[in-house]
């Protein structure tokens, strides 16, 4: 077997990177945010557009998953109606910790223009939300900026400590 002599003081130094656990876990988490495909209405189309060829969401490590058990972030894209409300709670509970929620568009934020009997006035009445994206519908750029803000938020948190569950009640 050939012996390779490595001069650690030269040639680019040690093949080792020093970092803290926090930083490397957060680095991994923040750069592989897998999103749940939760297109409810018009914003879902813009969410698809940001996943498609022009905006290319995969650059952020954001891959859409159809199962809540594989997802880290739930992008609530569209109007949440009262009939659908129980499902969002169920899907949120099925996601594994740590989990984040992006509320995309006016309807998900506050009910938006649909101030009617059948619309939930903001998903934050049912599940805790990390990020609100304004717009009707928000452009794909907005969603991407939102994901970058979420990455920043994840990196700012301590990963080694047990995550404090975000609960409404």
């Amino acid at each position, binding site marked *: 077997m050939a012996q390779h002599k490595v001069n650690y003081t030269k040639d680019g130094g040690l093949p080792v990177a020093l970092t803290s656990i926090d930083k490397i876990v957060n680095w991994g988490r923040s750069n592989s945010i897998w999103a749940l495909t939760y297109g*409810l*209405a018009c914003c879902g*189309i813009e969410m698809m557009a940001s996943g*498609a060829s022009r905006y290319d969401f995969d650059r952020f490590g954001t891959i859409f998953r159809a199962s809540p058990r594989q997802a880290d972030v739930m992008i609530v894209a569209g109007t949440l*109606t009262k009939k659908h409300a129980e499902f969002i709670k169920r899907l949120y*509970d099925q996601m594994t910790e740590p989990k984040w929620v992006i509320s995309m568009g006016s309807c998900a934020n506050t009910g938006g223009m*649909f101030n009617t009997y059948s619309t939930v006035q903001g998903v934050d009445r049912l599940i805790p939300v990390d990020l609100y994206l304004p717009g009707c*519908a928000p452009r794909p750029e907005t969603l991407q900026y939102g994901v970058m803000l979420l990455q920043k938020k994840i990196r700012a948190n301590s990963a080694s400590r047990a995550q404090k569950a975000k609960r409404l*009640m």
Partner: protein
Amino acid sequence: MAQVKNRLNPFFENITFDREDNELILNFGPQHPSAHGQLRLMLHLQQEQIVKAHPDIGYLHRGMEKMAENMIYNEFMPTTDRMDYIASSSNNYGFALAVEKLIDVEVPRRAKVIRMMLLEINRLMSHLFWLATTALDIGAMTVFLFAFREREYLMDIIEGYCGARLTHSAIRIGGVPLDIQDSFIAQLRVFLDKLPQNIKDYEDLLDKNRIWLMRMEEVGVISTDMALSWGCTGPMLRASGVKWDIRKEEPYELYDEVEFNVPWSDKGDNFARYRIYMEEMRESAKILYQTIDMYQECVENNQTELMAHAPKYVSAPKLDIMTQNYSLMQHFVLVTQGMRPPVGEVYIATESPKGELGYYINSQGGPYPYRLKVRAPSFWHTGILTDLLPGYYIPDVVSIIGTTNIVFGEVDR
């Protein structure tokens, strides 16, 4: 981590799973990536074969008809965007046309040409989106990426015109608010010149693809009687052997002046519908070329009016509002109180990309419609799944839902 307590009952409250027979009940949706929105299907299965299908809708019911009863006519226009959100302008147009018939207003020619451009661009956008999502559901990822690329070019053009990508509100009652921007026609020409090659690319990928053919041919066959009985319109009806296109049969706008063919088929299966969507894209391109010529004629003939002149119902042009006192007062009244159409009712059908989009308006002379009913084509295209799915297999469900081209903003309203 402990779950938060909630009151939700187990998922299937009313369904017994321990059945005597071998039937399996499968729940599909309402959050399913290939349900094209919030469709929930209860499928009764015998092995892999469906014996009974029960579509459950209403997960996107936002009460738009109720909203319309509490809004002045112009206020309702942005709400129509959110109905068929793949092709917003066609919804705007259907509503605007219904109100124009009610108040009996004739739209200037230039506005008509611009409206037709918008409608056909929307049709292209809708069909491209349909192709992308259906292909994605069936597994053709490349087509999804290709079709979205072309759709983005159209989005750019529309965005240059009205500032929005998805929810345009680009049409007003009585005309259009703006003339098209300088680069509109140049950009459109560039796109249209490339389009035949693009469509050929999709067809090369799909037409002879074995997987595509197996999932499409002889699957989801709708007979003529069934299509008529279920109120199918648009491509769904044309694929089932009825050559009925409202643009051709009951022409509105300037569709009687343009030349185009109505593709139809008597096969009635998924593949026939797919072919019709592809051919319709070609026909739309043909219409768009003709509208460009019509627009240039309007420019040469110096027809600059964009809004109809009807002081009781439609505001004066912006220049008049800014310079003339009476125009400003009239505009103020129309914005704060709203127009008051005559007492009567109207039902107007237009050919949206999905099918017959009709608006029924009952006006009692007030600024709010007394009753507004939207006849959305997707509603019945979802209903037909009840009769269509039994007999087919689980993988066919996805391709059948795909080719029906349903949009849930429109189904549930």
